[in-house]
């Protein structure tokens, strides 16, 4: 194995360890989807603009299409598959998206959920304006965004322990 062309990559995704052998030029998004079969992370533009591939790398939102899988070696990743509880109970963000009608086709949703998860941890009581700025890096061709903002605010209230 030429280590400049192929590497063994170990990552922890949603608390579970995965190891795979990948070409060094494979993106993290393709590694997650093709090798680990975690196809919840979507791939839209592959140049950082649409936000569909956003995952958390050591807790921070990043574009999985702009990272090489080999760069994630040793890192802790979170993807949309890790949001719901083991018994299938949806995460408050997922519940709010459902209740507020914040998705239609769902293509953009995994990326938005991951961005909002990290955002609400940092800013548990955001204003609508702050939510707008937080999701500016995500394209949604269906909803017109307003329901997504409503869902984020509702989930924030629920996560703070307030009745939404």
């Amino acid at each position, binding site marked *: 194995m030429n280590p400049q062309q192929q590497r063994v990559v170990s990552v922890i995704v949603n608390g579970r360890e995965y190891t795979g052998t990948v070409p060094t030029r494979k*993106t993290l998004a393709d590694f997650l989807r093709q090798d680990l079969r975690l196809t919840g992370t979507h791939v839209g533009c592959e140049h*950082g603009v649409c936000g569909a591939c956003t995952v958390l790398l050591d807790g*921070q939102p990043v574009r999985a*299409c*702009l990272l090489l899988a080999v*760069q994630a070696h040793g890192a802790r990743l979170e993807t949309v598959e890790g949001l719901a509880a083991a018994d299938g109970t949806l995460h408050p963000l997922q519940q709010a998206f459902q209740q507020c009608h914040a998705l239609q086709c769902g293509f953009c949703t995994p990326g938005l959920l991951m*961005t909002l998860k990290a955002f609400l941890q940092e800013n548990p009581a955001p204003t609508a304006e702050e939510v707008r700025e937080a999701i500016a*890096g995500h394209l949604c061709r269906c909803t017109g965004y307003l329901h997504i903002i409503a869902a984020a605010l509702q989930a924030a209230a629920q996560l703070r322990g307030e009745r939404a």
Partner: protein
Amino acid sequence: MKPPRFDYYDPHSLDEALALLARYGPEAKVLAGGQSLMPLLNMRLVAPAALVDLNRLPDLAYVRVTPAGLALGALARQRQVERAEAVVQGWPLLAAALRYVGYPQIRTRGTVGGSLAHADPAAELPAVMLALEARLVLSSQRGRRTLPAAAFFLAPLTTALAPDELLCEVQLPPLPPRTGHSFQEVSRVWGAFALVGAAALVTLDDAGRCQQARLALTGVGPVPQRASAVEAALAGEPLDAERLRQAAALVEQDLNPESDVHASAAYRRHLARVLAQRTLQAAWRRAQEAQKA
């Protein structure tokens, strides 16, 4: 697989990284945050023989206050810099401008050094570095040299970096007391590159006159530019809204923007004047507050 085939290296020391750059020369590409390089690789607009990834280099991700000012290591992430208390307090112009660079998810990975090395003619940070009179430390196996930001940007996507050189550190001198700042831009949508952006610093003297004004613009030519006619018209003068407006109008003498698919030359000139006026006004207001405090 989208990116073309390359030899991937993730050196664990600076010496190792510089040796790889010396070996591959123009055939190698440095990978920092990847927020400009990875799109180019995914679209196969570049096909380097080797990729030298800086991300496993220890100790390059620093944001440090030194007696000479602020020092940013090559791996200082844009998001980290924007939130660093030392930056918010001492170099607020940089923190303010970083908010305009892409989106938080881009800035989590993107580095300050990478934005400068990429030298996009519509990027925010190169203009900010001109206004802050940054010094850039470049290293290679041949040695180290330090360049003022004004000598670093040569043409669109072209800098003074030699193929075997690494931009190792960005140094920002401290700002004088009674200095106010402002960064503003006009872009199509939030997070996009600027059509035109302006970075202003206004320093007042004891008597409240303008001791020094600095104005740098992006999106108005092949490289970012200082507006020297505007700056000269304000130095030593008492300030009021009218004088700032008149001085800002001089920005058109300093610039010669070109038309492209994003905006006509006339529109860019118009934006430059409007943004010059707005940023000088805002910087002056902040300088007055600093004087009172």
